[in-house]
């Protein structure tokens, strides 16, 4: 089976910086990583390939430099990679992103039919969880989000059974291929490639597809033009008028500080003590 895994190169949010003066994001020097949620999907796809044979293609939309993330996915064991990169994609919101990715997957399918598409649950920079469902809708793939476990895949009957996380429980769902899956985090541990994998990944030519190459004829559906949403304002949240009242800690023991804290809490909120008492009761 041919599986496509969509990944995104994201700034490592742990190291993201906001310009103190202009309040804009400083991308300079912020390392990029593969969106961590995508790795669970990649690993699951690799496991299916190892079990059933076939091929895993990783796909990303991004600037030319995003090839480093694809190469990393290759070094983890993916067989092929496609970089979707075109100026007309700049400023895409999730609707335009899902259009571009779906177009590329449709193009891949023309030569090598795709049985499954994997996406991350969401990205750590956008946190929207919308691109996966968007791709599923556009390609009419059966949508399986928040999958905890793939129970069974029957390639001949083109059936799949999965366990999907719902609120308060797990749904066991069966559906037909082709389907789109987003894996829940923590469901597997992504593998580390061998030296052989590393060399292969370093050597692989990664094709860069323009919009036209991905079969997109109407660029009005791409990028800013194809995005119904627009970000009008980016800002740091206004600071609260008052900063925290500080408990005096100079020269105090931890016990003194704790006692002073309780006094301050109960003085600020008279009903808090009662709440705590009730709480601690059970």
């Amino acid at each position, binding site marked *: 089976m041919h599986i496509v895994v969509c990944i995104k190169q994201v700034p490592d949010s742990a190291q993201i910086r906001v310009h103190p003066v*202009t309040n804009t994001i400083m991308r300079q020097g912020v390392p990029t990583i593969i969106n961590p949620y995508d790795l669970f999907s990649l690993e699951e796809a690799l496991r299916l390939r190892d079990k059933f044979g076939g091929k895993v293609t990783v796909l990303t939309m991004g600037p030319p430099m995003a090839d480093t993330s694809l190469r990393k996915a290759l070094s983890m064991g993916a067989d092929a990679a496609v970089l979707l990169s075109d100026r007309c994609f700049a400023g895409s919101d999730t609707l335009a992103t899902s259009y571009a990715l779906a177009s590329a997957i449709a193009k891949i399918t023309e030569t090598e039919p795709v049985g499954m598409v994997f996406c991350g649950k969401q990205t750590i920079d956008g946190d929207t969880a919308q691109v996966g469902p968007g791709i599923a809708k556009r390609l009419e793939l059966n949508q399986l989000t928040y999958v905890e476990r793939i129970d069974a895949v029957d390639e001949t009957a083109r059936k799949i059974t999965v366990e999907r996380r719902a609120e308060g429980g797990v749904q066991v769902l069966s559906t037909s291929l082709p389907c789109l899956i987003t894996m829940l985090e923590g469901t597997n541990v992504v593998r580390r490639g061998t030296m052989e994998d590393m060399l292969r990944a370093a050597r692989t030519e990664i094709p860069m597809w323009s919009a036209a190459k991905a079969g997109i004829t109407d660029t009005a559906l791409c990028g800013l033009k194809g995005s119904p949403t627009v970000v009008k304002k980016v800002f740091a949240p206004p600071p609260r008028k008052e900063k925290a009242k*500080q408990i005096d*800690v100079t020269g105090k023991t931890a016990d003194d500080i704790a006692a002073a804290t309780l006094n301050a809490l109960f003085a600020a909120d008279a009903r808090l003590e009662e709440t705590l008492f009730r709480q601690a009761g059970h």
Partner: protein
Amino acid sequence: MTEAKPAPAAAPARGKMKVELSDHFKTYKDVWVFIELERGQVHPVSWELLGEGRKLANKLGVELAGVVMGAPGDSADAAVAGAYEYGADLVYTIQDPLLADYRNEPFARGMTDLVNTYKPEILLLGATTLGRDLAGTVATTLKTGLTADCTEMAIDDDRSMGATRPTFGGSLLCTIYTLNVRPQMATIRPRVMSMPDREAGRTGRLVVHSLGMQEDSIVTKILNYIPDASKEDAHLAYADVVVAGGMGLGKPENFKLVKELASVLGAEYGGSRPLVQKGWIESARQIGQTGKTIRPRLYIAAGISGAIQHRVGVEGADMILAINTDPNAPIFDFAHQGIVGDALTVLPALTETFRRHLAQKRAAE
């Protein structure tokens, strides 16, 4: 929907982008809230959204509607009644045995049908696994804008909705508009909005719509549903007292100090995102924008610096007590009480002092 937006060079650069709505979309009116009914229960986030939807509808001078989809029966009726009591003027409902459990296909079809038929200008859904699964499909089908995980919504003079959400991993906030398509869709996470008062006996109009699907035409089947065995973390979002730790704890072993204080206070415990990423605590215990949003009476944050992504998850707390060694840590900007000190020494002292204090009070009762 901000996924791939580049950071604007200067913050307000796009402010002038206004687009006249087409005549078609000008007919879109009213604010809708999707009432999430799963396994007989309405998710509380739906009531929270009705409270918020009420404000938007009032500002716009339109009606507030609930959308109830489910199998016919008592629970669907209760959901409809609940929607009125929490502020809906009318309820659109599709009741069909095919909707007994959530599946993307029939729910997305039903929702899309309703929107195309009754034309709301705003559609709000809870950012739950169900709401997000559904919203993405519906928005893509309708080719409209969807803003995920909003923390604030406001109506502009031109009647458009500005949806504010954290962006760039929670280091900034951004306000997003859906320019020339309707409805304007948004998802909001549980507990971000406060629970409105319930007005018992309040009622409204009911609009019944049919699904028009056959089971045969739905590819995805539900084979089983396994309820979670333990729900120990399920209360975090709704807890009255929460104690949480961050990287300031230094080592995973030190997290027990958080648990000990929580135990003395009968509180829930949680942690910041890095702790989850490092595997110190399970992801269900994550507090913040991408974890749980909480609104407790008392929130104690130990060794948490207070990045925006954390801040938006805890701002609803009545009282925030922050413990951090760095007097300039951003958490002191939004905490109510602060202790500049090492959580490793302050936490045990607090635990002991609370223990003693509560024991004394108990003895005095």
